[in-house]
């Protein structure tokens, strides 16, 4: 296992800049998630680390060793491809044995067998070992593909949306399994996903990418609680954060076209700010300061999302369990002033308080 450092990596595909001056360090034993929308450059970052893609400028270091010229085979990484990449015409067992049988590793057959059975058990594919890979379902192939990575003890696991083709149930259980494997083996893992829930639940640290730029790097808590930009704030958290344009009036911030206004935070903010309020910080109470009407109710069982119309703005609020509120009912609510986010006109977080 090892540290990996990317330094000022830039990668272009013809006119498109996939990665623009990307710098970060992945620590030994860390579960590092690259999160971002489609086309953000997550997969490209992973491929640059693996050496499958050569960066146009910048450097990749493995344990402080400059690795730009080292071919993929010698970087000793395991890669779980989004398209599974299983070898056709080979059984599941042979697929799993394959990386271990490489002449560069020389693993004895007995050990190969133990390792494969161990990995197969973890991934619940023991009954598939004799099958040909062409006859597996998408979810089974995905698990075999993960298996091919975890039979090895590489310096780093690189996983490109490995859970994206699974059904929801399996995704959830494999998410837990992967995190467990990572924690018990203490393996360095770089995990690409566009699913914020995967990112928040699994990561030690998250790097949020968009259009080839790193928007923010931090722990899941940092990312959720102190989003660096409106893009990060919107990407993380369901339901989405409420973003409300405000104007300053008599020492208060008044949300445009609405009844909501709050005190100007200590430390001051620019003239025009976007106010960000997480749905859980919009609280319905009998004697709340603001009033609105219930415009839509989305029951999710464990909690309920309420769309509250307040003037021209609609705020999302999340309440635990079922709700007694009815559609079009007038309600009063409060916003928790200790958990507010402020962004300037460019969408960058304004540090306050």
């Amino acid at each position: 296992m090892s540290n990996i450092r990317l330094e000022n990596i830039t990668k272009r595909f013809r006119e498109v800049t996939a990665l623009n001056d990307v710098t970060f360090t992945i620590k030994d034993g860390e579960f590092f998630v690259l999160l971002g929308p489609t086309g953000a450059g997550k997969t490209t970052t992973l491929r640059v680390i693996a050496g499958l893609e050569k960066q146009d400028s910048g450097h990749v270091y493995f344990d402080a060793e400059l690795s730009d010229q080292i071919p993929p085979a010698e970087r000793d990484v395991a890669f779980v491809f989004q398209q599974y990449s299983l070898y056709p015409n080979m059984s599941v067992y042979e697929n799993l044995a394959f990386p271990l049988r490489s002449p560069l590793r020389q693993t004895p057959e007995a050990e190969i067998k133990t390792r494969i059975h161990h990995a197969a058990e973890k991934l619940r594919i023991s009954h598939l070992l004799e099958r040909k890979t062409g006859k597996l379902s998408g979810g089974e192939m995905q698990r075999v593909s993960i298996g091919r990575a975890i039979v090895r003890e590489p310096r780093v696991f690189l996983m490109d949306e490995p859970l994206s083709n699974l059904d929801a149930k399996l995704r959830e259980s494999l998410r837990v399994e992967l995190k467990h494997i990572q924690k018990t083996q203490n393996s360095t893992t770089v995990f690409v996903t566009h699913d914020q829930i995967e990112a928040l639940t699994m990561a030690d640290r998250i790097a949020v990418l968009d259009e080839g730029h790193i928007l923010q790097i931090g722990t899941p808590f940092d990312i959720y609680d102190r989003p660096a930009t409106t893009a990060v704030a919107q990407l993380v958290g369901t339901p989405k954060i409420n973003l409300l344009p405000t104007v300053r009036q008599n020492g208060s911030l008044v949300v445009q076209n609405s009844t909501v206004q709050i005190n100007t935070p200590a430390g001051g903010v620019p003239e025009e700010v976007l106010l960000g309020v997480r749905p859980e910080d919009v609280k319905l109470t009998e004697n709340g300061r603001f009033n609105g009407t219930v415009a839509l109710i989305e029951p999710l069982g464990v909690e309920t999302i309420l769309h509250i119309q307040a003037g021209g703005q609609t705020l999302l609020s999340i309440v635990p369990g079922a709700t007694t509120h009815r559609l079009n009912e007038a309600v009063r609510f409060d916003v928790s002033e200790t958990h507010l986010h402020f962004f300037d006109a460019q969408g960058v977080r304004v540090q306050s308080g």
Partner: protein
Amino acid sequence: MAQTSTDITSLQSSQATRQPRQRQMSDLRIMQLFILPTVILLILMNIFPLIYSLYLSFTNYSVIADKAPEWIGIQNYTTILSDQRFWANFATTGRYALISVILQTLIGFGLALLLRNKFKGSGLVTTLILVPMMLSPIVVATFWKLMFNPSLGIFNYLLGYTDINTSPLWLGDPNLALWAIVIVDVWMWSPFVMLLCLAGLSAIPEYLYEAAAIDRASAWFQFRRITLPQVMPLLLIAVLFRTIEAFKQFDLVMGLTSGGPGDVTETVSIRLYKLAFQGQYDTGMSSALAYIILIIIIAVSNLYIRSLNKARGA
């Protein structure tokens, strides 16, 4: 009111009279009409000759003799199968087909591997390589006959022979004549194998090689476990086509050597031609020979198709 009701009845009656005139053909009828010309052609040109020649193969009959076919049972077949020269014809054909198909497969596949990665002008090069395949075999045979010519041909010159007394007689030497035909056939048909292999290669996803690189697979392993199995179905189709064609090989041999010198390049189809359309015009015997060739080709094709299905199923 009465006026309108008569209008309606007259309208209905006119519709009723129009309907049978505008009679619509059923879909089945239309289908049959479209298929009919092909079926008639097939029956006249393929099925009738097939059955009639099967009958003739059991008779003593010549199209130029003014005599009705005389039923002689399997005598034509026993004559053919006990005649040394026929066996020699089959041996020649088999040797020719084997060498030719092996060389075409190796060269075609090799060319495909070389042309697989695009380079500047690779499209043009591919097209140029495909040209021989598009020529008429008899034109190819005539060109190569000139090129093989010991006194004015370019082939020996390119090989470095400048003295006509020592240079090889490609078409006249009994040891070389079959090889000469093989060379021309390989020149003409390797591009076909290449074309099919290129199609197969381009369908192999790049990520398989990436996974292999990550897994530290050797180049040989990548070729044997990824490239070869993925190309195999198309490669086998190419080999199947070429084998059938080689067994039927007629025009190249006819144009180059006509089966000579002596009968060293006399393939079964040349022999068939001589039997059917030269000398005695022995229609009965040649029908029997044609059936033997047909059975061999069906047998060989079946072997290929079986291995093709196996390659696909895996």
